[in-house]
């Protein structure tokens, strides 16, 4: 080979060698012994001494208020601070990060200790993340605006011919597909905001969302919004929300224990009553 070719090969070998060295495995930190108990205020968090909680952006009512999780207003915001309190972290030692849905469930290292964003617990998902104990039982609801073809529907059969929509990646969409199984393919939107816009444009006849969100949207966000009815609970375990932690997190046990303590002391029911009580009762679809 001439001199130039040899130089190019040497350069390539050097680049390859550097790349391999850079990709050398980094030793992983040993997972903490979760049976050692949950020392208050001193848990193996991402940043020592600070509890990092995550949610999405925008953060919707009635789970948060004003797209600001630090206010402590809104069911999940208040719940987050209640859990932090149980774990020994005061309001000043809680920090929030905003993390989109995909980033919360991807397999790499997470930027939070736990994530509260109306995640439904399912066995399939447990293969990828850890869930805390459930903190809310979810019911799915169909909403619409006055004057739409499904505004007076009382049974699921009447909804089958309608064009319905739901947000992507939600159990609302799953409920729409499994329980209503409409004959026209449902419209799938990136966010509930897009779905609301389509509903107002008459492009879809109704949206499926969870019950508290349904009450908020129909009362505060949609003009002439109307709740058609709740979908019946599917047989077996009811759908429940849980906090998401990274797989094998040392905090899962502690966070679950905190949620359980809030439930037994009645604090969870009180929070529900305070933030989700306007979610009175909606008619049930048969």
């Amino acid at each position: 080979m001439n001199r130039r070719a040899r130089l190019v090969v040497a350069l390539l070998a050097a680049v390859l060698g550097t790349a391999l060295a850079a990709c050398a495995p980094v030793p992983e930190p040993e997972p903490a012994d979760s049976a050692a108990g949950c020392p208050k205020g001193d848990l193996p968090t991402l940043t020592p001494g600070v509890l990092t909680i995550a949610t999405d952006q925008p953060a919707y009512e009635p789970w948060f208020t004003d797209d600001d999780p630090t206010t402590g207003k809104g069911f999940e915001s208040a719940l987050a601070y209640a859990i932090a309190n149980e774990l020994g972290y005061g309001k000043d030692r809680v920090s929030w990060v905003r993390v989109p849905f995909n980033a919360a469930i991807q397999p790499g290292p997470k930027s939070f200790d736990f994530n509260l964003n109306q995640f439904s617990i399912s066995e399939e998902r447990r293969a990828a993340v850890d869930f805390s104990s459930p903190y809310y039982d979810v019911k799915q609801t169909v909403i619409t605006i006055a004057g739409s073809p499904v505004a007076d529907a009382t049974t699921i059969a009447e909804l089958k011919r309608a064009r319905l929509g739901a947000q992507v990646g939600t159990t609302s969409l799953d409920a729409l597909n499994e329980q209503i199984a409409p004959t026209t393919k449902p419209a799938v939107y990136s966010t509930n905001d897009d779905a609301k816009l389509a509903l107002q444009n008459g492009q879809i006849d109704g949206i499926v969302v969870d019950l508290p969100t349904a009450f908020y949207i129909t009362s505060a966000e949609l003009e002439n919004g109307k709740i058609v009815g709740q979908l019946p609970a599917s047989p077996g375990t009811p759908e429940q929300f849980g906090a998401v932690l990274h797989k094998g997190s040392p905090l899962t046990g502690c966070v679950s224990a905190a949620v359980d303590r809030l439930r037994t002391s009645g604090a969870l029911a009180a929070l529900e009553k305070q933030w989700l009580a306007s979610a009175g009762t909606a008619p049930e679809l048969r």
Partner: protein
Amino acid sequence: MIKDVPLSPLAAERAAFRRSRARRSTAVAFVSTLVFAVALWWAVTSAPGWPRVQATFFDPARAWESLPAVLEGLWLNIRVLVVAELGVLVVGLVVAVLRTLRGPVFFPVRALATAYVDLFRGIPVLIALYLIGYGVPALRLQGVPNDVVVLGTCALILTYSAYVAEVFRAGIESVHPSQRAAARSLGLSHGQALRLVILPQAVRNVLPPLLNDFVALQKDVGLISVLGAVDAIRAAQIEQARSFNFTPYVVAALLFVLLSVPTGRIADAVAARGNRRRSGR
């Protein structure tokens, strides 16, 4: 055609030497590729997170499960692609021709065409989709379609024609002015010269960039999913959210690659044929 004549000893020796060098090049390329591939494979699989990544991104069971849904979404992509591409070619050509009209009397037409191109090359495709997909039905005009697929296709055609119009215009302007002069001197009118002489040459000149834009359009068609239609990537997203497993995305990516590889090869073949014609071989 020259009949095969026996080679002189010198020519035969040269041919044999060239063949041996070619064999050696192939062997070196093969070994080098093998070494590189093995090194890359080792680097990736010895990463500590590899088992987790393999389970999350390359799970065969999930890939098989999500394939029907992703294929159904891909079918929507293909339908919209064909319609959008036809629309883009027609509108793009019209706008390009309008922009290249000569004469001061056509100034408003040229100005409008330029404004259209500037506007729609500037607006991001996603915003155009939102404005047209949600804004137009909100106007509640009579006779305007409400279907999100139709509106999405219109938005894509409007946006991409701006780019393709510029490509066509470059093609038209790359045809030597002597062609137009020759056409006119043969008695062809302006319109006939354009149709019979300029445009065929212009389009042949710009086939590679046109096919490039076609491949780009294949991906951007997926953006109509923001309007509620379920395309391949949205279908993959729905599957992914069910189990928090990212393999459906890899499946969708592979299907898109399968879709665009033939286009790349066709582009190469067309360019090669154009070169052959031009150099007369």
